[in-house]
């Protein structure tokens, strides 16, 4: 029992529902994991973008459709969509105090982030199979 700490809640009680957010440190941890992922992918993605500059459509499709490029871009898109969903959620929770508006904003954020991710992944997959 945690009587010594002077709080009314037991150790089990504190852990059971994992804090005010109900999800413990999951949000914090996922933000860091995606941040490191994006950091690692930053240079390869930058190289890909520079490779694309000034290219016509055929050359662009050929570069983006290459297996390694497509895989790197897909990883970047997934990490980015996830990271930005988490980040925008923090901004919403900090500034939107009306509960209904907050719920609507959090849903909109979730949908927008997923839509950007899915649209980008669809395009990458289409490019790998030839336009």
């Amino acid at each position, binding site marked *: 029992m945690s009587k010594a700490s002077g709080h009314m809640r037991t150790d089990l009680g504190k852990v059971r529902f994992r804090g005010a957010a109900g999800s413990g440190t999951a949000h914090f941890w996922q933000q*860091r994991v995606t941040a490191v992922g994006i950091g690692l992918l930053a240079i390869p993605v930058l190289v890909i973008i520079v490779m694309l500059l*000034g290219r016509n*459509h055929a050359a662009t*499709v050929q570069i983006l459709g290459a297996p390694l490029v497509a895989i790197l871009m897909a990883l970047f898109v997934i990490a980015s969509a996830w990271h930005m969903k988490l*980040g925008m959620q923090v901004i919403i929770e900090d500034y939107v105090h009306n509960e209904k508006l907050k719920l609507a904003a959090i849903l909109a954020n979730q949908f927008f982030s997923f839509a950007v991710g899915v649209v*980008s992944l669809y*395009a990458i997959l289409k490019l790998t199979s030839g336009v």
Partner: protein
Amino acid sequence: MTSRIERPLSPHLQVYRWTLTMAMSVLHRATGAALYAGTILMAWGLLAAAAGPTGFATFKAFIGSWFGLLVLFGYTWALVYHLLSGIRHLIWDLGYGFGAQERFALSRLAAIGSVVLTLAIWVVGFAVGGVR
């Protein structure tokens, strides 16, 4: 009923003198929000390439216009700034760099580095893309 007790409140943001770390914290969030909106460009670009030559030409015309280039330049800086400032945050997450001097040095490195790297990327971009 007891009357409301006037307890001292913690002062809010506006009473503090602005510091570099504080300004960079605000800027980290602001660039994050800007990058969020900017992902529409990334999705559009990929979708345009996948759609075919006509859609791709529309995207290229926008990106190549003065407004498109301005947006892209701003996007590059926001991305580089958020990345460098984010690395700074990861260093802090690991428990390093909290000293008065280190904190300032890390922040200055990220701020100056973001401008230098952005310019370098555009110089390389024009050098490579210009010849094609």
